[in-house]
Every structure is written in C-alpha cells, then in structure tokens.
C-alpha cells in the first residue's frame, strides 16, 4: 500500500507493466518488488524445493525469494531479483517455479511430503541403479526444482567489457563511501565510486535520520551532486563490484540498459568492468539478518530494515498491520518510522527480557514468535510470553531484526577469513586480506552514521564531518526459537531448515563446508547472504563451540550473479577471435574459393571451376596444373622473420640444427629447429640476403612460438649478441609459382632470364617487378621446379592477379591448400602433422642435419639414449591399392590382432594422389629398415582395415631432378 511520498518515487509518472499477463501500475522509481507491495501483492514466488509461497524478504541484492523472469523470447532473463529490477513501461515479468499459476502451484505437494525430502534426500534415494541418474532422476528433479529458465534462443543485445583505472576505488555509496569520496575527491585524487543501487545514498535514503542539519536523504543528494561536479570523480551507479583479484584488480558488473524500455542505440545490456585501483575502500554496508522461528517464511515476513526501505524510498507500507520482532534497538526505529507514516503497528516483540523500548505500542519483551498463520500471506502469529503461555497477534507483515552482518564477502575473495567480534555478534573483515583494500563503516562493523562518516573521512585523508546519529549497537544474539514444533527456515531460497542442519550434524557432516554441501545452505543465487550466519550459529550450538570456531564457508566471486554473456562481452561468433586474410583473399573470393582455417588465417583450400562439385575434383585439377604446367599459391601465411646484425649468424647457429653461418649470400637453406628437450620444434627456410642480413621462414602454425623463442634466445641466453629481428609476415606478400612452366612464367613477368646460373635451386635473387622491388626464392614445396616471389603486401593483390593471368596463359592457374597437401605428400615433405612435438630429427630422417660441428638448442638432449635407433617410430611412406588411407589409422603386421601391444605406428597424413593412388606418411617402428613390408592400416574410428606397403616417404622424383630443374 502506498502511504506517502517516497524519496525515489516520481508520483506523477505512472509506469505500466505486466506480471503473469496481468497489468500492474507502478510509479517511476519503483522496483518490481516495491510496485507489487504498493499493489498489496505480497506473494511473489515459490520456493526452490517445496514450492512454498514466498514473498519479498529484503529491499536489496541479497533477496532470496522474489525472483522473476523478465522479458520474452530470446531476451528473457531468469532469476532477476524483484528488489533490484526497476520497472519500465511495457516490462513483462513472470513468476518462476510455479505451475499452473503462482497462487495454485501443483508441485506445492512437495511441501506435504517434506518429511521425506529432508537434506540428503536425493543422495540417499537416487543412488541406484546408477544409469538411471543421468537419464531419469536428474531430468525429473531438475524440472521440479529449477528456478527460472532461459529461452534457449540466441540472446539478444550485446554486452561490453571495459577497463577503468583510479587512485581510489570506493565500493558502496552509503554514508561511509560518500564521505570518503567527498574527502578524497576534494583533494584531486582520481576517485571511482561504484554502487549497485540506482543512485548514491545507501541507507541514507532508507532511514529518517538527520544528517548535517537536514534529512539524510537530502544530504545524500547534495553529496552526490558535489561528486558529479568534480571532474576527477567518476560515479558509477547500478554497478556491483563482484570480485577482488590479484594486482589490485576488481571485477564489476554495470547494468546499463536492463531497466530501460527503449535503450539508446548501440547501448549494451550490461558491461563487465575490470577496475584497477591503487587503494580501495570497501564501504558495502551490512545485511540485516533474520531470526528463525516456525513458519518464518510466509509472505509478509521480512527484514525490519527492508520495511523501512520500502517506506522511505518508495512510500510503501508492506502491510496494513505490522508487527516487529527484534533482538536489538534497530527494531524500535521501525516502530517509530511506521507510526510516523500512519501505519498501524500491532506489536513490538523483543527477545531481550531486560529492555524498555518506551514506545507507544503493545510491547512484549523476553518474548519469541512461536507460530505464524496465513496460506498465501501472513495473517497472524503467536508469541510466547516470558512467564509462559501464548499470545495471539494479528499482523499481515512482520518486520524482523536479528542484528547486522557486515558485507565481508569481497575481503574473502583472496583467501582471507573474517574475524568474529563478540560485541556486535558478527564477523568483520580481516585487515589486509585483500592488498590495498580497507573496509570502512558498517562493512567494518561500525554501524552508526557518525562512525561511518568518521571512518570515510579518515580513510580518505581526514577532515570535517557533518553531525549525525551515533546510537550504540545493543544486540543480544538470538538465532532461532527453541522448544517449539514447526519448520524454522534458514535458507529461504534453497529451503533449508534448522532441522536440516541438525540432520547434517547427526550424520557427521559437521565441518561448515560439509554442512553447506549436504544441506545446500547458502548455495542458492543469493549465496547465503541471509542464511549463512544462522546456519553457523545452529552448528555452533550443536557442536558446543563458539561461532568463530565453527568458521565460515568460503565466499567466492561473484558477489551477485553476472550474466555469462557479460563475461564473454563481444568476443563471440565472428568476434571470438581476429580473422587474418591473405593478400589474395579478394581474388579468392572472386574465384569462389573455399577456405581452411590455419590458426587465425583463412587460407584458400580450393578454387572450384565448371561442373566440379567436390573439393577432390578441384584439387586434382589443380595438382595436374602444377605437375603439368604451372600453379600459383598464396604462401604469405608462413612466418617470416627478418634477422639483421653481426650477431645474426651466431643466433641462427644456436637456433637451427644446421650451420647457417656457412650459408653464402644469395643462397637459401632448409633448416630444422629443436626444442631444448631434443624434439623437433619447427622447420623452414633460411635465406641470406646480405653479409649480416637473413630472412627465415617458419610454418604458419608455429610463427608466434618461434618468434617468442628467438626473443628468449637473444635476450636471455645470448644477450651480448649484436642482433635484431622482427616479424615481417604481414609486410611481405609471398606467392609460390610451381610447375615445369614456372620459369617461363617468371621470365616473362620479370623480363629477365632465370637459368641456373642466374638463380640456382635454393638460391635467392632480388628482382624488380616494374617499379616494385621484390624477392625471388627458388624453393619448392611441391617437388617441381618452383619459386616463391615476395613483394610488399600492398602489391600482393595486384601481383596475384598478374600471376594468375600468366599461369592461365601457360595452361595453369591458382591452387589451394588441398592441392598443396597432395603435392607435398607425394614428395614426402613434412608439416606439423608430422613434427607434432613427439618426434626427433632422426625420426623424420634428418638425423644428419644436427651438425656435429657446433652447439644448438636441443642438441645435447637429442643425443639421449632411446631417442634414436631401431625401437623408434620412423617416418615412412605407405601405399595402398584397395582403398584410401586415413590419418589417425594405426599400423599392424599382417594377420596381427589390432591391439596396443601389436601397434607398430600410425598415419599422420594421407591423400589419394590423382597419379600415384592412395598414399600416406606414417611413423612405423624401425620403419626405414622395413621398406617393402606389407602391413595393415587399422582405422578403429571408421572400422576399416587397409592393406598397404611400407615404402620410402618420397613417392615421386626421389632424386629431386624436377625441382633442381
């Protein structure tokens, strides 16, 4: 019921939304919960396990019960707390976990069976048969017990990720946070103040205090206005700091447009922030805790502080006849505030026998609530009188105050454990638990407004503070009512009762972490903000220990739930990783190429022509062009590193197994790099362009790894070498021109002769293509007479078009990765399919490439026993007559069973050559000595056994006459 103006309500602005299809009218500034309370709707949801009717308990993000689905279709968001969601015109809200309706929920029958569904029920009942768990039990339980549902559709709306940096991060904008921000802001520090609420103020908006001679809410508005005027202060509202991480880094989630009917164009739904702060003040306040008594979960029973929040912020009285149940003086304030607003207070029930509240209300001290009534909402309650006997109290709302828990959560994210303070009966943060972070105000157990302001000012450099209330904390711990029947609820979302804790204790789940997992206490979306302390207190009683000896469970990020989509930000689908396109990409698009991803690169795989319908038809034609005429292929993606300086040759000698220092200018050599453990890291070519100038290539896949390793060798192992190098992969477009007509093609293009005297096999020649200086290497990855021509990348597109035209004129054209793969397998050339990290130079037949004349990375370890010899699996070729070979198939002797002990090796690459038939490269035990042997390639995945012969891995032109030309 709306009884007065609220500090956050614009009474003139009506907002219309719907709940479960019914129209509801609220006011601008309302949360979903306050709007429903204003409409006298106390029933807001059904509990997780027993489907009991539940109402709102809090007025903040710790809400366990008032959860809703907001939105429709793909934009539907489940488990939204009604205490946080601001209403907007056209908002669609639905209750969760109920069918057919919130008021009549079929699964409420669970509640009648609750004596069979106690803690551990699922573990004990659905043990057998094991196979039933996944297929039967779990789906049924999930259907019955779930909370909200996702639509299953692709989500709508984007999320962003962002960074912020500041001198001082202030978490929470209540009295302590505001005072700290003002004090630090006035000195010019870069201050960032974040608050999860819609505006700064915290409880200053929710109480009837005076502060600095004005209403506390007005003081908060003035303070917020001053902060807004300071250019060095950044105010982030609707922003929850969710985690504390190493390096003074904090995670935060900002709700950018979840509360807007029509968000601005381009605005994200929310933004996940990483905030780096030299210093941080945790001013996150405290959560009021409940008291457990029989049937303490009926709609209408809520935190006393929440009752005051609804009254002051939204002008809403959660009931027409309110009773107050307290163990501390805060409860008395609630009586005052309600009466001042003209709301009837039916009773003040204080658990403490020796206090005199002195309020004009029926007051019973030393009393307890022992029973409540009301099916879908509280109607009345019974209290036990100090001298014995019961008293009936009529109430549709019960405001409960069990004391306050400082919000220590963030201080526990880096392994800190909170410290118990007897005087306030609560845990407070351990100082220094998060480097650079200090807790102030209520978050540090300083509960009066004066203490909060003082702590805020002092933590930010000191200064004057305005006058404010300084009431002492008078709390007598009281956790739950004893000696009465009925279920006393601790965790209102997961339906955990005092009895469940007792059962856990009885079954020896006594450590708090065991108790938590056995009962699910504190495992709901509110992460036990309301329930943990009650559970600990019950366990402490049962084990006869003080609460601090029982300890606490571990608080982990996030403080409140974050949409997973926010953690992904825009890094999904096309933006999951960058795309790298080759210089010939535009032409490849025009030619209808299909692509294969090589790391981040998109490489053309084949170029379909005419009636070709399969990749194999295209690839075979392209292979034919290279073998019979000339083909052109983009090889830009291979890593290119430009190495210069007098120390270049020494660095390359260290990196490569071969002696690159003897390489002559204008010559190219094939090189192998090992890891320090003696296994092959990468291969490529090394060209010497000048006295102290080399260009080396790496495989596409290993370009980054090799570059980092070169940095390591140059900076860490050989820091004195005068050498510099840089990746030029993106600076040079490079195209292979391969086939018997390749020389003719290039002679025409370059207008010069290219015979062996001018450019021999494994030679390098600087060339001019018109006005453009290029580099021509005579190297071959196909076994044909072949060249690679490089030009600065900006000319790549022009060059590939010229090369294609000239190739066409000579009876050839473009070829892609599929043809390249067939060509290289025919020739026995290796890729990372072969040098996959578990092979040595000797395994691939390159043992002699490890120069005996010098040291190199991996040399010593490659000489270890067991890394060469007949027991090693060595590179061989396989030829089959009756069917295609497949990579991954394992090799067995003829007539041998396909079992691990008979395993002779495996296929790494396979193809069906248009001219040579079914080929494969494989590693086979002692393979080099077994050429001519008949074996079987067993492919367990495809269920095939293919007879094949072990042969030399070079299937074609073993003497290299073609490429030497």
């Amino acid at each position, binding site marked *: 019921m709306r009884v007065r103006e609220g500090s956050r309500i614009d009474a003139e602005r009506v907002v219309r939304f719907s709940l479960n299809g019914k129209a509801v009218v609220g006011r601008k500034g309302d949360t979903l919960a306050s709007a429903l309370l204003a409409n006298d709707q106390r029933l807001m949801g059904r509990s997780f396990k027993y489907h009991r009717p539940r109402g709102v308990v809090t007025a903040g993000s710790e809400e366990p019960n008032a959860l809703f689905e907001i939105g429709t279709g793909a934009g539907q968001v489940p488990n939204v707390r009604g205490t946080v969601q601001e209403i907007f015109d056209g908002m669609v809200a639905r209750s969760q976990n109920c069918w057919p309706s919130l008021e009549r929920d079929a699964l409420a029958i669970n509640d009648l069976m609750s004596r069979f569904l106690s803690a551990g029920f699922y573990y004990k009942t659905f043990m057998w048969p094991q196979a039933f768990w996944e297929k039967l039990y779990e789906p049924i339980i999930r259907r019955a017990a779930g909370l909200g549902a996702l639509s299953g559709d692709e989500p709508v709306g984007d999320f962003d990720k962002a960074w912020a940096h500041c001198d001082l991060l202030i978490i929470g904008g209540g009295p302590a946070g505001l005072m700290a921000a003002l004090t630090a802001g006035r000195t010019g520090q870069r201050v960032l103040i974040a608050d999860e609420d819609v505006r700064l103020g915290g409880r200053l908006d929710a109480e009837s205090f005076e502060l600095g001679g004005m209403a506390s809410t007005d003081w908060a508005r003035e303070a917020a206005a001053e902060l807004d005027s300071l250019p060095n202060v950044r105010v982030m509202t609707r922003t929850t700091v969710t985690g504390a991480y190493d*390096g003074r880094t904090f995670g935060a989630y900002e709700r950018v447009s979840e509360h807007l009917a029509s968000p601005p164009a381009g605005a994200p739904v929310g933004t996940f922030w990483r905030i780096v702060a030299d210093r941080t003040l945790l001013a996150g306040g405290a959560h009021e805790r409940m008291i457990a008594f029989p049937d303490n979960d009926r709609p209408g029973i809520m935190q006393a502080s929440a009752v005051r929040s609804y009254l002051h912020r939204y002008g809403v009285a959660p009931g027409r006849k309110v009773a107050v149940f307290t163990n501390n003086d805060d409860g008395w304030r609630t009586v005052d505030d309600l009466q001042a607003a003209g709301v009837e207070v039916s009773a003040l029930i204080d658990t403490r026998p020796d206090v005199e509240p002195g309020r004009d209300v029926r007051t019973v001290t030393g009393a307890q609530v022992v029973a409540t009534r009301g099916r879908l909402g509280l109607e009345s309650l019974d209290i036990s009188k100090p001298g014995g006997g019961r008293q009936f109290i009529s109430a549709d709302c019960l405001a409960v105050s069990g004391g306050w828990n400082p919000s220590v959560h963030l201080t526990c994210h880096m392994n800190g454990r909170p410290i118990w303070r007897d005087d306030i009966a609560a845990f407070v943060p351990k100082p220094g638990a998060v480097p650079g972070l200090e807790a102030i105000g209520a978050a540090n157990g300083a509960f009066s407004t004066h203490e909060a302001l003082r702590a805020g000012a002092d933590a930010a450099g000191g200064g004057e503070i305005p006058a404010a209330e300084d009431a002492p904390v008078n709390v007598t711990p009281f956790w739950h009512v004893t000696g009465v029947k009925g279920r006393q609820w601790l965790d209102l979302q997961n339906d955990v009762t005092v009895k469940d804790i007792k059962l856990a204790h009885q079954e020896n789940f006594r450590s708090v972490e065991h108790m938590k997992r056995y009962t699910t206490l504190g495992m709901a979306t509110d992460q036990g903000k309301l329930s943990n302390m009650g559970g600990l207190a019950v366990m402490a009683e049962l084990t006869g220990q003080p609460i601090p000896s029982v300890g606490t469970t571990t608080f982990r990020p996030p403080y409140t739930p974050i949409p997973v989509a926010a953690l992904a930000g825009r890094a999904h689908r096309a933006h999951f990783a960058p795309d790298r396109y080759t210089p010939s990409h535009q032409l490849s698009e025009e030619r209808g190429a299909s692509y294969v991803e090589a790391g981040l690169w998109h490489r053309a795989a084949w170029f379909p022509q005419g009636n070709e319908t399969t990749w194999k038809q295209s690839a075979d034609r392209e292979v034919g062009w290279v073998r019979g005429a000339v083909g052109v292929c983009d090889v830009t993606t291979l890593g290119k590193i430009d190495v210069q300086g007098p120390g270049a040759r020494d660095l390359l000698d260290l990196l490569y197994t071969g002696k690159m220092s003897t390489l002559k200018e204008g010559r190219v050599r094939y090189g192998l790099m090992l890891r320090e453990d003696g296994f092959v890291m990468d291969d490529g070519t090394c060209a010497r362009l000048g006295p102290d100038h080399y260009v080396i290539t790496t495989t596409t896949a290993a370009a980054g790894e090799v570059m980092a390793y070169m940095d390591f060798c140059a900076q860490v192992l050989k820091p*004195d070498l005068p050498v510099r190098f840089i990746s030029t992969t993106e600076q040079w477009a490079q195209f292979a021109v391969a086939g018997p007509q390749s020389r003719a093609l290039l002679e025409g293009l370059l207008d010069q002769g290219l015979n062996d005297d001018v450019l021999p096999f494994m030679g390098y020649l600087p060339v001019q293509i018109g006005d453009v200086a290029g580099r021509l290497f005579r190297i071959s990855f196909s076994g044909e007479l072949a060249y690679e021509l490089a030009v600065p990348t900006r000319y790549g597109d022009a060059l590939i078009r010229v090369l294609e035209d000239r190739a066409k004129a000579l009876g050839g054209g473009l070829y892609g990765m599929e043809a390249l793969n067939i060509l290289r397998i025919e020739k026995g050339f290796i890729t990372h399919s072969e040098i996959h990290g578990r092979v040595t130079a000797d395994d691939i037949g390159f043992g002699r490439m490890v120069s005996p004349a010098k040291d190199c990375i991996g040399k010593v370890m490659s000489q270890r026993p067991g890394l060469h010899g007949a027991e090693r699996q060595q590179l061989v070729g396989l030829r089959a007559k009756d069917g295609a070979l497949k990579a991954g198939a394992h090799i067995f002797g003829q007539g041998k069973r396909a079992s691990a002990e008979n395993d002779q090796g495996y296929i790494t690459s396979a193809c069906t050559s248009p001219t040579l038939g079914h080929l494969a490269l494989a590693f086979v035990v002692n393979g080099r000595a077994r050429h001519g042997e008949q074996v079987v390639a067993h492919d367990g995945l495809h269920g095939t056994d293919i007879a094949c012969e072990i042969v030399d891995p070079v299937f074609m032109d073993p003497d290299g006459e073609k490429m030497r030309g």
Partner: protein
Amino acid sequence: MRIECPQCGARDVREFTYLGAAVLADRPDADATTEAWQDYVHLRDNPAGPHDELWHHAMGCSAWLRVRRNTLTHEILTVTMAQEDRT
C-alpha cells in the same frame, strides 16, 4: 594479476606469457654432464613463497622479464629485464 614491465609500466597479466623458473636462463655448456642437462631441462623447485621466473611481454614490447613472484599470494615482488640481468 598485474606485472610492472620496466619498459611499458604496470600491465594486466593477459599481455604476458609465462615460461618457467628463471633457472632456464642458466643454460649449461654443450659439454656439461648429462645430470646438469637433465636438471636444466626437467627438474624444478616448487617453492611456496618467492619464486624467480621468466615472463615474456608477448602482447607488449616483447621483452623477456625476470619476475619474482610469491606463489602463495601472487604478489609480484620485483621485475627486471632479463637481458640486463645477463649482461
């Protein structure tokens, strides 16, 4: 986690790549004993506390850094250029 690169300033750990313990900088000579090489390539201490290690500022200036990090708290104690340490 953040690492204060001597060249670039404090940067988020995502910019860096971890290699391993700083003993990797002390590569044995080619004629060192098998045991020395075995130590260098395979054997590492696993201290609970300060640990010297090598990090590469791969997404920054490409510097190799010698970082002293507390393995219990992830506190970065010192950062120096590996190159300067060696020369």
